[in-house]
Structures are given as structure tokens and as C-alpha cells.
């Protein structure tokens, strides 16, 4: 998707009358499928629907905090009226929000609870996601007693990876024996493969009963490693409900993924943003309240993530039109789809 280019005229945002206005949207990275493919189009579409004259100024930080700070400043320079911020590093944003506040620009924390005086927070809680990952893994381990689990976590430098990790730990620490645990730089599938192979080598092919993988991208590498060691049928779970991950779930290589219904999250956010733009009340959109390290009682919407397995794909991802059956059931997976009852 091309942003800006010809169709943006941020400089005209001076006239913040009743009808028009501009909303800044900052997303954190461009290698994970969701942001470019879902969050952004959903938010933009909803804003357009609610406010035809509004425009969205979108930037993606490529996982770099300082880059995001500059994009944040750029939005202020352009004179946007509201900022939706999905922070690369939610702990670093207190000053930014204060800057925006000084200019009278409200900030909505999206997906990650940015520190500072944000107006609202709409998200799936990352710790919750980690907990759900852990819980689903434990569930899919079924009857195994004293299950042994390998954990392949996200990038050691990514604060959000830490949240998934601690969420998962909060469940797994009691329920299973963590026999091998590694962080993977850059969330890289190839490195995940090497880590998994090392786990297999040091534990033996039957030295563990399930694998926690922080996201679907790395799950691909982990599953490749398992396959090449001749191990199949172990529970392996990821996150993000990526197309490739769903296909693996259909074909039975991967056990589950975590699906966050992005449409309601995005659309609620858009509604809150437009409400802020127009100075309307949005209390009914944000029934919950959370505390951040800097602020208390932030109005928020906390959504519940869903674990997707082969059994509930049709009811979740497909029902939400997140992906269509055609997208998932390519030639390679047609057979498996039949068996899973997708058509």
C-alpha cells in the first residue's frame, strides 16, 4: 500500500472544523504480517467510513524506537489532530505523549500500552497472549504427565517479546518442565531452526513433549527442524494467525496459533479516534480501565485473543474473513483442507 505520495495534504490540516481533520497512525514494524495487511487497512477504512473528510497519516517504524519518535514528531509538525500509537517500545513513550499533550493532540495507545498520559488504550494484552499460548500448549499436551517443553522466544531486544515470554512462563512454570529455552535474534526462522535442532541434539528426539514458539514465522523454522529430525505430531504453537501458520495448522504440522481478531480492535480504535477528533464522548467504547506504570485508570478496551486450532479455524479466522478458504487451501494444502473439512 502506498501512503502519502499524491493524496496527502497534511499542510491543510489547519482548518480543524467540524467535518475534516487528520489522524496520525504509527505502527511498529513492517515484517510481521498483521500491521500492513490488517491493522492499517481496517483502521483507515473505518475512519473513512465515520468521517469522509478525515485523512490518515500513516508511518511504520520498522522496529526502531528512535525512528518512531521522529515519525511522532513529524505528525506533530504536520499538525494532526489525534495520534494512534502502537509503540515499538511502550516504556519509552511518556515524553512523547507529554509533547503531544502540550500541543493539544490526544494520543491513543493501540495494541501496546504506551506510557504517558494516553487518552485511551485498545488492545489485546500481550501478557494475556503469552498466557493463552502457554495454556493452549498445556492443553494440547493432553494427558502427558510432567510434560517437558522447549521454549523458543522472540528477539531479546524486543520489549514485547519479553511480555509474551513472561505471560507464557506464568502458565508453563507450574504446569510443565521447561527443558530448553532460547531467545531468537530478529525473530528469525532460520535461527529458530538452529535453536530447535540444538534442543533436539542435546535433549534427544524424545526429550521433550511440546514446543512453545513465540510467533508463526519462527514456527516455520522450528517445524522444519523437527521434520528433519523425523519428529512429527508434537504440539507446536505460535502466534499471529499468519497465512503460512494457518496452512501448517490445516496440514497438521503446527498445532495452534493465537488469533487476535484485529477487525474489532482496529475499528474500535478508529471510532475512538474520530470521537476524540470531534470532541465527543467515547466512554461507552472503552468500558475497561487499566493502569500503566505512569498513569492510572486509562479508559480502555481489552479484547480476548483466541487460540486457533484445526478444529476452530472455520469459526474464527474464516468466519471473520481474516483469510478466505481459497487463500488457505492452495494446491499444496487442498488435500489437508478436505480432511479438515474446509471448503
Amino acid at each position: 500500500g502506498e501512503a502519502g505520495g499524491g493524496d496527502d495534504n497534511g499542510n491543510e490540516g489547519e482548518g480543524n472544523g467540524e467535518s475534516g481533520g487528520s489522524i496520525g497512525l504509527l505502527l511498529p514494524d513492517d515484517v510481521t504480517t498483521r500491521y500492513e495487511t490488517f491493522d492499517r487497512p481496517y483502521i483507515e477504512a473505518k475512519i473513512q467510513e465515520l468521517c469522509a473528510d478525515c485523512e490518515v497519516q500513516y508511518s511504520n517504524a520498522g522496529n526502531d524506537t528512535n525512528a518512531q519518535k521522529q515519525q511522532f514528531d513529524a505528525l506533530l509538525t504536520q499538525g494532526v489532530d489525534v495520534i494512534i500509537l502502537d509503540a515499538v517500545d511502550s516504556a519509552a513513550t511518556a515524553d512523547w505523549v507529554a509533547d503531544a499533550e502540550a500541543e493539544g493532540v490526544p494520543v491513543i495507545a493501540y495494541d501496546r500500552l504506551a506510557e504517558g498520559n494516553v487518552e485511551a488504550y485498545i488492545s489485546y494484552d500481550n501478557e494475556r497472549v503469552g498466557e493463552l499460548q502457554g495454556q493452549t500448549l498445556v492443553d494440547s499436551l493432553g494427558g502427558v504427565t510432567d510434560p517437558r517443553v522447549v521454549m523458543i522466544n522472540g528477539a531479546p531486544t524486543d520489549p514485547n517479546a519479553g511480555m509474551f515470554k513472561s505471560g507464557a512462563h506464568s502458565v508453563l512454570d507450574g504446569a510443565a518442565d521447561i527443558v530448553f529455552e532460547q531467545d531468537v535474534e530478529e525473530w528469525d526462522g532460520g535461527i529458530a531452526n538452529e535453536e530447535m535442532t540444538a534442543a533436539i541434539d542435546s535433549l534427544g528426539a524424545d526429550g521433550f513433549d511440546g514446543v512453545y514458539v513465540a510467533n508463526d514465522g519462527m514456527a516455520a523454522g522450528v517445524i522444519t527442524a523437527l521434520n528433519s529430525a523425523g519428529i512429527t505430531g508434537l504440539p507446536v504453537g505460535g502466534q499471529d494467525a499468519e497465512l503460512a501458520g494457518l496452512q501448517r495448522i490445516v496440514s497438521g504440522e503446527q498445532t495452534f496459533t493465537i488469533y487476535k481478531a484485529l477487525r474489532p480492535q482496529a475499528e474500535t480504535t478508529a471510532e475512538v479516534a474520530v470521537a476524540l477528533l470531534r470532541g465527543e464522548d467515547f466512554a461507552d467504547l472503552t468500558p475497561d480501565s487499566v493502569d500503566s506504570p505512569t498513569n492510572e485508570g486509562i479508559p480502555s478496551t481489552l479484547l480476548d485473543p483466541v487460540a486457533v486450532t484445526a478444529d476452530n479455524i472455520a469459526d474464527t479466522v474464516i468466519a471473520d474473513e481474516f483469510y478466505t478458504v481459497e487463500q488457505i487451501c492452495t494446491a499444496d494444502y487442498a488435500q489437508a483442507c478436505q480432511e479438515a473439512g474446509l471448503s
Partner: protein
Amino acid sequence: MSDTQKDVVSDADAQPQAPGEQLAPDPRLLVRERGLMGYVEDFRRRIRGGELGSIPVVIGLIIIAIVFEAQTGTFMTPRNLSNISVYIAGPGIMAVGIVLVLLLGEIDLSIGSVAGLSAAIWAVLSVTHGVDDVVSILLAIAAGAAVGTVHGVFFAKVGVPAFVVTLAGFLGWSGVQIWVMGEEGTINIPRDSWVRDFTDFYFSDISAAYTLAALITAGYVLLSWRHERRRAEAQLAARPLTEILIRGGLVALISFVTAYTLNQHRGLPLALVLFLAVLLLADFMVRRTTYGRQIFAVGGNAEAARRAGINVARVRLTVFTIAGALAAFGGLFLAGQGGGASKSLGSGNLLMNVIAAAVIGGTSLFGGRGWIWSALLGTLVIQSITSGLNLMNMSAEIQYMITGAVLLIAVVLDSVSRRTQRTAGRT
């Protein structure tokens, strides 16, 4: 080493020709005529000969500004320009270190990691352990210098190529950085820390910016004039007063326009003042001290420098120390800008951008050629592109492509304009 030294020959010995006779100047040398026409002629010759110095970069900057202003309408606002002047400080200070290392003919791949490590050390000391802010800052910079010294020792004393030492540092220090940060993903800047002021303090009194501009202009004109007078006294070719005044006028124009613009927003940023101070100091060191001369010599021909009695190992070692300290200092600016120290600070494209800045600014990768101000020019180019693209809300992949393309174009311009010179260069 001092004024009183005697050369074996020139003091008392004869010139073997007729007494007092001086060699006629080489008739093949196309000397510059005096006066205005002389300048025009000289300029034309330099364009044809490809000796344009930093003119291509400056033109590039102007083009970038025009294009982005046309596209966004907000690029040339005082706010954006003021922001740019703050953003360039961190990478720019790091680029000064890289320029020094490049002058040596070496490269330092570790500066990103060192910046991150130092920021982590500062944050852990001052926030977690409650050490005094200024002390923590000094310790963080000292840590950067120490790390640089370690690199320097391995390179200069042990003889490992600098590329490899700093590559190892690139990996190793970012490990240490993560380890220092420990449990914390990010440590916020305390409200009253200097580090916050580095990027967030502005001298809001408008007189501050104008005073600085006046000082710079006066200093430049005065020093040039004194220098040229001494040359004239020594019967060496000297620039005429008019030229000094024209150049002084240019300096005045740039500094006062900048001061005016900055005052339109929030005033003179402390970040810019610190960056300028580093630039001026480094420039003085490089051009006016024996040490600077030694850096150029080692970068040009290390063996010749050694034979001239220069302690090559010491020069190399200290340059890496300085580069480490500057990386640490720059890292604190990045921490200030990002709102705190984090495990990922200094990773990503920072290293490449800093090196690119030094090279775009006109410092050679092959040693012995360059100037400190390339850190300023190059960082300005890169930051202008980034800011412009941000204002245009370009998606990240397009940003990557455009940054790559502009980087290439900037250097292509430079290479083509230097081509004649290069062909003429000897083996």
C-alpha cells in the same frame, strides 16, 4: 618542534645559485589571477577539473529541501528544521568519531553497540543504582572510551584488522548491553536528567541563538584575517581581504538565518550547541595540531609515518578511544530522543547511517582524505531525507528504497565530479 629549531641547510648554508636569486615560478602552473574575474575563472577550472569539494553535497541538500518542501509543504517550517537540528546531534557526534577512524584508513563497526552499551550503563547507574546524574554520564562516556581503547589495543598493538576487532565488538558489546539492562526492557529517563536536556533543552531567549551566530562569524573572520596577514608578511600567496569578507559574509548569512529559524520554534537547541562544540573541537584538533597531522599521515601511508618517527600504534589507539567516547556521547543523545535506554538502542541501521553520513560528507574510505565537517553535512543529508519521508508518510519499505537511492545518488554525484581528479591520480 619549536620556533628555535634549525634546519641543517636553510639556516646558514648557501644557495648555490647566484646570491639571493629565487627560482622563477613554474611557467606551467596556471596561477589564479586576482580580482573577481580570477574567482570566476578559478571556479570554472575547478568545475571542469572536478575539484568541487563539498559543493555537490550542498547542492544535493538544497535539492532535497526543495523537493520535500514541494511535496509536503511542511519541510521548511521552523519546527521541522529545528527538529532536524536536534536529531542530527546524536548520529552526527558519532559520525565525527567515524570520520577520525576513516581518516586513519580504518573502520569502526562497533559504534552502534557502544552507543547502546553506554546508554545502558548510564541508565542502570543513574536510575537503578541512584548514582548522581552527571557522574553517571561521565562514567558512561568513560566506558565508551574504555571500549574504544580495547579495540585500539587489539588493532594497534596486537595487529588484528580493525574491521574484525570492531566486528567482534559489534556482536560482543551488544551482548553486554542486553546483559547490563538485565530484566528491564527499557529504562526511562528521570525527569531532571541532563540526558533529557541533551535533546529537549532549548535556549528560548532569542538572544542566545543570535549571540552564537555573531560569535561564529566574528571568530571566523578574525582568524582568517590574522592568518592571511601572517602569510602576506611571510611573502606567501595570501587571500585578499575582499575574499575573507565574502567568505565571512557567507558564514554570517548561514549562521544568522539558522539562528532566526531556530528562534521561530523553541530557540537554540542545546543538542545543536553541543554538536557544534564537538565539531569545532575535532576540526581544530585535526587541522591545527600535531596529533591531527599524524592522523592524516598514518592514514595516508602508515609505514612512511612510522619512518618519520610517529608512534603509529599510539595514534591508532587514541583515535579508537576518541571514537568510542564520541559513540558513547552520541548514544546518550539517542537515549534522550527515544525516551530512555533500551536493549535495542543502537542496533538497526544506525551504524550504516553514521558511516554513510561520513562518506557522503566527503571523507574517503581509504584513509588520509576528508574533513570533520563531513559529519555535519552527511548527517544533515540523511536526516533531511528521513524527516522528509516521514512528513510524506512513506511506508517503511519505500523509505528504505529511497534512502538507498538517495545515498547512491549523492555519492554518484560526488564520484562523477571527482572523476577527472581520480583519473589524473597516480598509481
